[in-house]
């Protein structure tokens, strides 16, 4: 048995095996609950897996109250599909999960601009597939990555990667652009050595195949 029912929760066990989809279906039909909680333990479930679970539950008119997991990937998959999630930290097994959970501030995956308020400090990583807006500084040692454009209402002192999925027309804008390193799509540039003049918002973009920094445009 890879899946069973314990303490009013549907629990997934470590070695899920290939047949878990059917097992899961059998179980929720047999239990006949209107609302369930999922405990995914250490199982690594991707978006397809979670989507399968979610669709099945919607079909059967069952509400998923919440999903608990020790695996950060599962948590990210589930929360990106709109489930209510809790990351449970297990000291012995996942020493680094706390670290991960802390670094991966972005777990939502929708199409809208990702918005972050507050300073990103050394070691913090903020990642999104879409445009990214940070209101605050990106400190040395912190990193921001976006599939689209990056806009920083503050100072960029760390590393920024715009167009991370290959979009060469993406740009990076900041009130003060003094990064350690800039990347747009596959191009890499080191930050400017000299301090920029205060008070000019600057933008980095690809022109003639290299990354250039110029005063920010107000229209696109």
């Amino acid at each position: 048995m890879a899946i069973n029912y314990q303490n009013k929760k549907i629990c997934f066990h470590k070695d899920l095996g290939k047949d878990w989809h059917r097992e899961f279906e059998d179980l929720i039909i047999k239990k006949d609950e209107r609302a369930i909680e999922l405990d995914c333990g250490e199982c690594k479930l991707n978006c397809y897996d979670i989507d399968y679970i979610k669709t099945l539950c919607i079909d059967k008119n069952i509400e998923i109250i919440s999903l608990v997991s020790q695996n950060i990937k599962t948590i990210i998959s589930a929360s990106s599909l709109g489930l209510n999630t809790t990351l449970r930290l297990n000291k012995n097994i996942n020493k680094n999960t706390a670290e991960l959970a802390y670094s991966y501030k972005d777990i939502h995956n929708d199409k809208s601009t990702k918005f972050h308020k507050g300073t990103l400090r050394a070691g913090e990583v903020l990642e999104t597939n879409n445009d990214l807006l940070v209101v605050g500084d990106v400190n040395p040692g912190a990193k921001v990555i976006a599939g689209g454009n990056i806009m920083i209402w503050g100072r960029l002192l760390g590393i920024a990667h715009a167009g991370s999925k290959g979009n060469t027309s993406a740009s990076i804008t900041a009130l003060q652009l003094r990064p350690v390193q800039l990347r747009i799509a596959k191009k890499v540039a080191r930050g400017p050595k000299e301090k920029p003049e205060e008070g000019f918002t600057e933008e980095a973009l690809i022109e003639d195949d290299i990354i250039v920094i110029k005063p920010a445009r107000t229209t696109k």
Partner: protein
Amino acid sequence: MTSDTRVILICSGKGGVGKTTLTANLGISLARKGSPTAVLDADFGLRNLDLLLGLENRIVYTAQEVLEETCRLDQALVKHKQEPNLSLLPAGNPRMLDWLKPEDMKKIVGMLSEQFQYVLIDCPAGVEDGFRNAVAASKEAIIVTNPEVSAVRDADRVIGLLNTNDIKPVQLVLNRVRPKMMESQEMLSIDDVTDILALPLLGLVLEDEQVIVSTNRGEPLTLIGSQSPAARCYSNIAGRLQGEEIPLIDPSQEGNGLGDKFRRLMQTKIF
């Protein structure tokens, strides 16, 4: 006292920036100002708070025996002879790291909070288990850093972790400030540091040979009533921590006064 006890974590990220020295001197200063103060060594791997306070030879029991309930808290506490308002709770042996949990640390700090007004926790370097345990038991924090890029970077990382753990307030102490080097821009300036870390500056501590001398003797500068630059800095920090309004020293004015020159001369003769 329990609820208004101030449990302050003294941490840095990078090692060797002056956490233990600050803990010892702050402990003495606060105690001297009349507040019952406990200093707790959370650096089980490389403990040396006992050494700095000159209490190494008086340790019988440690936090370990208290947790194992083989002794009472007051048996493990080492009271400072010259400054009886100050007590040290020594760290257990390094193997304690294997089993110590955040709850254990909370328990110890909870017990200390019943007797003391200040509990200062000397945190180990790094951001691993030892740090996490100490964070779990703390309410507020002092970040110690040096005017060096690597120390500031690590401090920034730690501040991020403290923020996610709801530690408030977090204040900054900039240690080993050398006015001359700052002036000639060979060292990060105070503004460079506070600009990145964006924390209220609790105080500066000047680079001072006397710190090393006192460390070797096991007598914190604040204990012997030294008038050396670092000693003044430490007691200013203690004062500010208690809410006194004490202006920051201006490093560019340090060491220029006649008094300073005279003191330097005296010190070179004596030591």
